[in-house]
């Protein structure tokens, strides 16, 4: 097989500082990726403040679509999205021939390779709609044993840093309830921003814990190694691509954020 390096673009769904981005990039070390896979992280130009409403979902979709639109011509071999919401994936798949990996979809299907019913462990109840949307789209609602949260508003930029002592025990308790009360035999972390909790939870729980970001990178490598990509039948191309329009829309969105409260 080819000895070429696989270049993977990871789209981070919020504008952020380099320090904040570094916390996202830590996921690379948790994946034990082969040396011939290179990850390049890129933030979106604009984003919703969080992912809790239908308006947020639409802004997230267009922000990620714009961020990944030129991935193929920029020489990338695949695109990953750094959010379990799978925002922007369907639209990007309609535009790109290279694989676009959806961490949420991938995680739930991988869970079914390892067990019979999975649970979703989340930070916040207001994220449940995101999981339900993907589960419905996949038609596997009946394979989800339960979704539980620790009722804590997440920090999408600083993640769990500085809050570990408070948050990790709460996540552990909720995960135990998913296993013991709900019957989950695999647990899916409900956000790539929870990656800092993965090791703590895996050491303490008797079921596999799936870490969606690193899993998406390895799935990108698997998809590329097998010469696969999303089906064009499932994600048909538009008759007329509006790439310029999309770029201008996001430039306008970014300008708008600079003149208003960005939170």
């Amino acid at each position: 097989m080819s000895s070429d390096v696989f270049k993977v673009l990871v789209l981070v769904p919020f504008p952020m500082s380099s320090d904040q981005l570094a916390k996202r990039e830590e996921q690379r070390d948790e994946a034990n990726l082969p040396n011939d896979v290179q990850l390049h992280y890129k933030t979106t130009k604009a984003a919703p403040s969080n992912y809790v409403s239908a308006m947020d979902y639409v802004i997230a979709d267009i922000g990620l679509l714009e961020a990944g639109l030129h991935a193929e011509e920029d020489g990338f071999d695949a695109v990953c999205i750094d959010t379990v919401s799978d925002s922007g994936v369907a639209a990007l798949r309609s535009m790109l021939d290279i694989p676009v990996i959806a961490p949420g979809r991938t995680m739930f299907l991988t869970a079914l390779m390892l067990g019979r019913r999975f649970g979703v462990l989340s930070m916040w109840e207001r994220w449940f709609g995101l999981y339900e949307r993907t589960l419905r789209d996949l038609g596997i609602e009946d394979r989800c044993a339960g979704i539980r949260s620790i009722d804590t508003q997440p920090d999408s930029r600083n993640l769990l840093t500085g809050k570990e002592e408070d948050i990790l025990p709460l996540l552990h308790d909720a995960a135990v309830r998913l296993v013991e009360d709900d019957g989950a035999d695999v647990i899916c972390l409900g956000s790539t921003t929870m990656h800092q909790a993965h090791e703590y939870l895996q050491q303490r729980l008797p079921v596999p814990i799936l870490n969606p970001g690193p899993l998406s990178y390895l799935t990108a490598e698997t998809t590329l190694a097998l010469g696969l990509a999303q089906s064009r039948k499932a994600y048909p191309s538009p008759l007329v691509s509006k790439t310029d329009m999309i770029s201008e829309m996001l430039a306008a969105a970014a300008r708008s954020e600079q003149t208003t409260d960005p939170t």
Partner: protein
Amino acid sequence: MKRVAVIVPFALGEADLARRRAQTSEVRLSADIEYEFLPVKGGPSSFQSHHDWLLLDVAVLEAGISAGEIGFDAVVVDTASDSGVDALRSVLDVPVVGPGRASMLFALTLGKRFGVLAQWEPALARVDKSLTEWGLRGHCAGVEHFDTEPDFENLIGDKGAEVIPKMEAACRRLIESGAEVICLGSTTMHEAHRFLVERLPVPIINPGPLSYKIVELLLAMGLSHSRKAFPKPLVPKPEMIHAMLKSAAEGESH
């Protein structure tokens, strides 16, 4: 260096094993993992009845238990029926991967509905059983066969000119039925994969190579199957299982 055992579901000789081993050259694999192809000691001669399926479950279970005793880091089964996988998962802590279920679930990462290409009409019952057991019937657009008796030893071999057009026609019927991704229904079809990819407009999943990549992914992430989903027996019986297969092999050699 990690070692992965690939359990081959027929008691094949070296030349026939080489045709199975060729699957590892069809995908870019980690340089840190070695794949060893280990045939079962005995088993069915065909694969189309409950009698055959049960015998293969026992044979794969025995071979996989041996692999665990030897110290392999993971086990893959070289059949898309996933024969023996559930039983092996109940006794081994290292990852055990079946190409069949992995293929169908991986197909759903690429499209919404998959089709399954089966070998011939007698193979349909087993695909049907798998779709039910894995809860994936609603995601399957159809199952089509190409009406060719399987050759578990020589695989497609020199029959490509005759067989591949029939496989392509069956795949086109799947696409007409709404399949957005096609799963090859047997690891023995791997020699046809590259020809079908050239001819068809949807992703084609090659189950053997996919299963090696899934093993690599699980090993990289330190994951294995859930013990909650595959509980251990109260009393494991490895000696009994070894004895049964030893006897089966001796019976076959008479």
